[in-house]
């Protein structure tokens, strides 16, 4: 299975990863190789088999809709690259 450069660029954009032009050939080769490995899945007929999401077929638990967390904004924002008055700063999105 081969993948072309425009597909690589499209996937990188969907994943929000900046891509170096020089890295595209290697990226193409690696992805194609991995997809070849993955294609081995098609050697088997899985008609009628239910997909398995949780190994023990357990559904995720839901908790009661109650407030359990305290306000720790200042503590958490210590890790933020840029904040102001409790807000996270990003480049301007609306002109």
């Amino acid at each position, binding site marked *: 299975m081969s*993948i072309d450069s425009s*597909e*690589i660029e499209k*996937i*990188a*954009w*969907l*994943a*929000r*990863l*900046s*891509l*170096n032009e020089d890295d595209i050939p290697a*990226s193409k080769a*690696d*992805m194609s*190789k*991995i*997809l070849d*490995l*993955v*294609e*081995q*899945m*098609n*050697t*088997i007929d*899985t008609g009628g*088999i*239910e*997909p*398995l*999401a*949780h*190994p*023990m077929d*357990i559904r*995720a*638990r839901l*908790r009661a809709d109650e407030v359990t967390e305290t306000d*720790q904004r200042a*503590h*958490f924002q*210590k*890790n*933020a*690259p*840029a904040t102001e008055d409790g807000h*996270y700063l*990003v*480049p*301007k*999105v609306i002109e």
Partner: protein
Amino acid sequence: MFQHTIAELSQLLQSKSISSVALTRAYIERCESLDTELNCFITLTPELALQQAKAADDRIQSGTSEALTGIPIAHKDIFCSKNIKTSCGSKMLDNFVAPYDATVVERLANAGMVTLGKTNMDEFAMGSSNETSFYGPALNPWDKQRVPGGSSGGSASAVAARLVAGATGTDTGGSIRQPAAMCGITGLKPTYGRVSRYGMIAYASSLDQGGPLTQTAEDAAMLLSTMAGFDERDSTSVDRPVDNYNSELTNKLDGIKIGLPKEFFNQNLDSDIGDNINSAIKILKECGAVFKEIELPNSHLSIPAYYVVAPAECSSNLERYDGVRYGYRCEDPKDLADLYCRSRGESFGEEVKRRIMIGTYVLSSGYYDAYYLQAQKIRRLIRDDFQQAFNDVDIILGPTTPTTAFKLNENMDDPVSMYLSDIYTVSANLAGLPGISIPSGFSNGLPVGMQLMGNYFQESKLLNIAHQYQLQTDWHKQIPGEFKES
């Protein structure tokens, strides 16, 4: 004294033959002098360790201590530890100071364990050699030209070199068992849902599971007893009582039925490792175990299915690293898209980007059914194969890895050859089963690991067999020459 196991250190501390402060100081000194050789640690935490050691000594004095109180441990740098850098081996989180403790960290600290530091790992746990770490690879103490395995390579290397008596790790496709095998130590991956994933940085959430790396099965039982248990904060944690692992260790193996999957003993397996596993089988037979050949007919599909499920979940989990709330942010972004793309592009390493790309591709419109859904169907087939096998046998035994530790850079140019290093371990993750790797000898001076896999929540059976094997052998007591005490 660094050859002591956790069980032995526990006795020394409880009998007040040594204080936790003295023990901790000695380990700090050893780590500071020898880690320059091995690069096992990303962060050492001597101040925290001494503070915890002092508190541990107070508990021992006042008679409120537990078996693990006062014993130093290292945590894989994937576990959040409050007010301590938690990098996950990535440039993305090089500046990240965790605002809270992972449940595993919290439970072990509550038992009185002393945190020596945070261990090196493949970036975001994506790798089988520790070479994808932003901090450079941890090295194998048996041969520093070789990898320790991965992704919990720093933890495995540190325990093998006796820089610490035990460490935590995580296993998504073999990341506890494979490095344990390559470094000659014991590593246990519990049943999915047994150990809380809260505060354990997510890679592939339906596969990730934390567990201990130790010298012995007895030590693994001690650590697991504290690490395991229901946690409301992890939605996939299983609400079920924790077994008394240590009390089951002494059970005799008479009549226990062990299955040997014929697919694990084929031409892919290094012949020396095959011979080694056969010698281990002989010892277990002498202990009373009965062996039977079994089939896991879909096991050849486990690597292909894994490299769809894991990257898909990784691409989704790693969306959170956006350069806005925490982590690396690029310089002078020209707009929001540029901020996202460059923050991620500049700080994720090659393997992480590769898996995000694969995951994004297989989940993208038009491909979902062909890849992710097909992989989940294969996952069921793999799980059903195991359930079929467990109708006949109690435990499954085989090699942990197809080869011993490989050389640095040997597999870095070819991602697929690196992926095959986990060929015997990934199926337990896909099926959610517990597995343990224990040292079973050497091949050309490098450790070999034997793997045992059990049915859901059969950790005590795995530990029991491993312990009985370790009573008959001394492979787990071997220390790499350079790291023996003179």
